[in-house]
């Protein structure tokens, strides 16, 4: 359970997988290898501690439904990449930051404070006519699909079904 129990081999294995997934879907991991492996160690610690790899730079509650938005990749990654060139912990960076054209600094927290999180949930409404299928939105990358159920795995960013919300 201790951080020191995480082996270099585990870090490298996860690092390789995340890098492959990122490259395949147009994302970039932070090119600073020491920085990235420290973060990946934190993800592995959280995976063991909570059963899911929540953001190493955020406090997880330990209740999976309440922490779902901060499971890496978090719901806030893409807007932070756009605005700051890096996600909150800076595991993921924008292309410009990857190429060294943009400096990566500390990113302000955009996740609503605990009391306001649920109030921020969007209501699926707006269209008058009934749709032939419900529309599901991936909270991580914004992918939309019209089908009875969300896919098991997001075809764009590869997160699991539980990261989808009803959009329409």
């Amino acid at each position, binding site marked *: 359970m201790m*951080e020191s129990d995480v082996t270099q081999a585990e870090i490298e294995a996860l690092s390789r997988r995340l890098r492959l997934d990122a490259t395949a879907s147009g994302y970039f991991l932070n090119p600073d290898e020491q*920085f990235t492996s*420290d*973060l990946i*160690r*934190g993800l592995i*610690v*959280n995976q063991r501690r909570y059963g899911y790899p929540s953001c*190493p*730079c*955020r*406090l*997880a509650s330990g209740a999976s439904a309440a922490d779902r938005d901060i499971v890496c990749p978090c719901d806030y990654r893409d807007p932070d990449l756009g605005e700051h060139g890096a996600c909150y*912990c*800076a595991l993921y960076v924008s292309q410009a930051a990857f190429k060294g054209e943009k400096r990566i600094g*500390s*990113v*302000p*927290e955009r996740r609503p*404070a*605990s009391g306001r999180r649920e109030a921020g949930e969007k209501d699926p409404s707006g269209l008058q006519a009934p749709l032939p299928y419900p529309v599901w939105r991936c909270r991580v990358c914004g992918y939309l699909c019209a089908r009875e159920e969300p896919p098991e795995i997001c075809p764009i960013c590869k997160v699991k079904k539980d990261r989808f919300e009803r959009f329409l």
Partner: protein
Amino acid sequence: MQLHRVEGSDCGSLRLYTLSTCIWCKKTKALLQEMNVSYDYVEVDLLEGEERESALEDLKRFNPGCSFPSLVVNNSKCIVGYDENKIREALKG
């Protein structure tokens, strides 16, 4: 609450709220170490139950979002996140 003390020169009361897994918290500790100031820190993710709640209640007074790292200076000012300039500025003289 489990406070860890790091000795250095006295720059007033400094309390750092951190997560043991957070890289920006590590950077903040390294900066304070480099500046050779004494400070207390608490690893909030390693606390459980009431102890965690009470640490978060304390932190909320200074940083309602309870994000990490949070550096509380002299029980009044709070520097949120790893902000080297702000930290150096706050601890000047």
